[in-house]
């Protein structure tokens, strides 16, 4: 019988293929899991930096791009080795808890408030908090990420400062999606939304959604690198995490961050901070 042989061969092939994958998986100590935010991936920054690191050190970086909330949750469980995130209060809590160590500043950019070109709420010439109050007062549609990301956390801080609890209001809707998707939905629905500048610039050409408010010091968006504590989670690749964190704050990489995006978007997407943390807080 020819056919059963054929079938058996097929099955054997399948199993061989699967096991080839198993054996092709890199040995654990050389792989690092980097949990980070969608903004660092969607802007293309990581695609530029990580291959450099892999060439220099031989580590293999597994980048898991999720919201800062999920990235920090992975760190809290020891499911990632190193975190590049932008949710300062949650980061401090992680470090205070002992799950994260060695939190270092990497770079910043800022958040912008984008919205319909007509600006029905009139947010342009006000502070960020006033802008949020005007959106609420005029009941203009506002789209929230609603995903515990760093941007979502920043938005909630602003609502709190504005003394407004938007939950359940008809003009306040949550997309539950990444920044790119949320911006696209905001453009379609003519809604206001808060975005990090990097993702906004990367998407600007497709969107009919101008920046209506920017430059307020409270809209600063800071990225930190945190190593997950190998003393608490023995499976964590502490040496790899340290190597990657050191790499990110190194002079060479900080220079790359400074240049990144100028050629494509006309302005830098991120501003390196490792040399002088907080020194240029007033600048954008």
């Amino acid at each position, binding site marked *: *019988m020819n*056919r*059963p042989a054929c079938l058996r061969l*097929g*099955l054997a*092939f*399948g*199993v061989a*293929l*699967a096991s080839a*994958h*198993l054996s*092709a*998986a890199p040995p*654990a100590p050389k792989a690092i*899991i980097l949990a980070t935010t*969608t903004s660092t*991936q*969607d802007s*293309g920054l990581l*695609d530029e930096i*990580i291959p450099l690191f892999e060439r220099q050190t031989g580590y*293999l970086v*597994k*980048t*898991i*791009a999720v919201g800062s909330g999920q990235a920090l949750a992975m760190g809290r*469980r*020891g*499911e990632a080795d190193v975190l590049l995130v932008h949710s300062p209060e949650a980061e401090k809590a992680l470090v205070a808890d002992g799950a994260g160590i060695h939190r270092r500043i990497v770079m910043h950019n800022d958040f912008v408030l984008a919205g319909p070109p007509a600006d029905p709420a009139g947010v342009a010439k006000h502070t960020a908090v006033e802008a949020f109050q005007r959106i609420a007062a005029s009941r203009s549609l506002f789209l929230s990420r609603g995903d515990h990301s760093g941007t979502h956390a920043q938005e909630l801080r602003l609502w709190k400062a504005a003394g407004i609890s938007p939950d359940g209001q008809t003009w306040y809707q949550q997309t539950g999606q*990444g*920044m*790119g*998707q949320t*911006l*696209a939905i905001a453009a379609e629905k003519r809604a206001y939304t808060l975005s990090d500048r990097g993702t906004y610039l*990367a*998407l600007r*050409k*497709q*969107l009919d959604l101008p920046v209506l408010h920017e430059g307020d010091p409270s809209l600063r968006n800071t990225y930190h690198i945190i190593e997950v504590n190998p003393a608490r*989670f023995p*499976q*964590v690749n502490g040496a790899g995490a340290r190597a990657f964190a050191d790499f990110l704050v190194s002079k060479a990489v900080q220079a790359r961050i400074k240049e990144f995006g100028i050629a494509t978007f006309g302005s830098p997407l991120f501003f390196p901070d490792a040399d002088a943390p907080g020194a240029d807080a007033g600048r954008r």
Partner: protein
Amino acid sequence: MDLIWEGLRKALALLLTLDPEVLRITGLSLLISGAATLISLAIGLSAAVAVALNEFPGKRLAIALLNTGMGLPPVVVGLFVTILLWRSGPLGSLGILYTPSAMVLAQAVIASPIIAGISLSALQHLPPGLRLQILALGASRPQMVWLLLKEARLPLLAAVMAGFGGVISEVGASIMVGGNIKGQTRVLTTATVMETGRGNFDVAIALSLILLVLAFSVNAVLTHLQQRGQRR
């Protein structure tokens, strides 16, 4: 409309220039979903044969469970496989989370019930006397099973196509257990999600078109096999 034309042009350009990244993503999609389908074929067919050819208490329940499994939501599979494969999870010592192996595993969980369910109804649809007839002619049990499968090959190939179609097009589980890591676990569907998020709609459309062509090619080959068997 402009965007779709732009996407078509981009797709052609990416294909004609044999863009290495796109080739790798396409090859990986085919490899992962192909392996998952083959594994699911082994599991699904065994399950279908076991349920179809045996009488046991709770058989109806087993069939109902298999049929429910055909609609297993990929994100649910992705979530549970992720939790199982976490470092702190029961299978964490394997260290395969965020590797192609994890994606093969998750996709096999999705495709197995699909193949089992369709195979089961194919086997149950065979004339009831056929089995007795084959056995009466002196066939051993494995020979009998083989002849039955051969008799049902048309719907069985349909089961394979449905299983493959289910996993090559699924994104929820692949992105959760694979992580969409460039050069390692990025497949056509997860790359499409990412490029959409990045606002590169032309690339996203190009990847979608490649996915459609790939699914069509695989199904064309399987259909050819199926219909050749039919004419003979």
